[in-house]
């Protein structure tokens, strides 16, 4: 086991992070290709919209594995968390754009009504808004400027954002779906592992 962990750590140190950004474009390129070759079924708009949302959630969940991997297994893959977070934001933004441009076609009356009146859209939109400051500050300069502590507190917003994302996926279904409930359950377990970090035990102030 420790040999495996060592291998992972050594490899992780050697592998650069930039190829992740390139790899992240491949699924999008695949979607575009499928769109023009008729591979996305009878309703390509919905297929694209749902697929992008699903990828965003999957990558978001992947970022939640990074710190438990270190804490419980001793695997240090921390440097991949930032690219994964940014890729997640990239997919979420495309998901939103497809909804605005292709699905609702900038019918702003309907869009605002959707955001204000339909809980699953409101929640999805809230998750997106929470992710904006996180994406903007996902760079070393921001860590320096904000200070590590503030920066870390800010980035705890991702816990709320991923939970809302999972909730959005469950609520978008008309019935209780096994798949989306499984995603939400995984998210809840991964967030549960952090409970102590987010709400540390109150120390005795008198000592």
């Amino acid at each position: 086991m420790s040999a495996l962990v060592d291998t992972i750590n050594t490899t992780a140190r050697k592998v650069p992070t930039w190829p992740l950004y390139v790899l992240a474009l491949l699924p999008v390129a695949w979607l575009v290709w499928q769109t023009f070759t008729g591979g996305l079924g009878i309703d390509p708009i919905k297929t694209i919209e749902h697929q992008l949302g699903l990828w965003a959630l999957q990558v978001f969940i992947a970022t939640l594995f990074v710190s438990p991997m270190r804490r419980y297994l001793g695997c240090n893959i921390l440097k991949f968390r930032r690219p994964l977070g940014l890729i997640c934001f990239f997919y979420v933004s495309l998901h939103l754009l497809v909804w605005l441009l292709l699905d609702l076609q900038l019918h702003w009356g309907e869009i605002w009504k959707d955001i204000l009146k339909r809980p699953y859209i409101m929640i999805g939109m809230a998750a997106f808004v929470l992710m904006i400051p996180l994406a903007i500050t996902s760079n070393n300069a921001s860590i320096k400027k904000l200070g590590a502590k503030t920066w870390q507190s800010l980035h705890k917003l991702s816990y709320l954002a991923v939970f809302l994302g999972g909730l959005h996926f469950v609520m978008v279904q008309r019935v209780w779906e096994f798949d989306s409930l499984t995603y939400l359950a995984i998210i809840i377990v991964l967030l549960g592992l952090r409970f102590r970090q987010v709400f540390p035990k109150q120390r005795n102030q008198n000592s």
Partner: protein
Amino acid sequence: MAKRYTSDLTWNDVTPKEVFFNRRAFMAGGAALAAGTIGGPVTAQGLREGDTPNTFEEISSYNNFYEFGTGKDDPAKYASALTTSPWNVEIGGLVDNPGDYSFADIMEKMTIEERVYRFRCVEAWSMVVPWNGFELADLLNLAGVQDKAKYVSFETLVRPDEMWGQKRSFLEWPYREGLRLDEAMHPLTIMATGIYGKDIPNQNGAPMRLVVPWKYGFKSIKSIVKITLTEEEPLATWNMINPREYGFYSNVNPDVDHPRWSQASERRIGGGLFAKRIPTLKFNGYEEEVAGLYEGMDLTKNY
């Protein structure tokens, strides 16, 4: 009383067989030729300009039929497991001639017509479908509706071995739907048994399914095995799950907002990536024919 509604056109007029089987290639091949054969008759009575019937492929591979899964392509994937022969429909309740009616007997007695209807899903997508079928009124008259009857309730087959979705409990099986008697007897209301002159595919509700073109699609219950005439408003599956979202009437209405989807406009399936949303019409465009059924009713309350 068959043929109480005519739209002056059949699927033959609208889309010649060789065209609908090969529409994409055809349209790519010769837009001018297509304009002559498809573009012409669609303005005929009953259809709006731009109401081009969807292809057989579109109609038969994109729909909801939760008995086969919740994905839009699940019904087409899994419905071949369903055996539709022999098929009996149990007609009971407040009728003079209750009993099991075999599908073959029903077909012998009914007059099959072609009806090209708009089909509007509550999820805000729509199609145009050239159905074949008979007026529900004719079947109900065959059973002899008693005076006390006010509603008609319908049930879908329950056969989990062939309909795997029924092994899951996301809906309470059987799927049920209901209509008020005057809605059921309306000339627009049909039992569809075919599409494009072919037997209706399993995934679309073989061997017979309801089609009520002015209501959201989930009212048009599929693969019916039981019809009961009742005095009380019957149960309807989606209404049972979420009465706030799915009313008993569920008439297509752009002015009545749905908690889940704006109903002001719709996406017509088959138009491609950049097809414009089209405004949704009250009663799905059949206002002239059916508005009278709801005179004096507050449609925002009886949604």
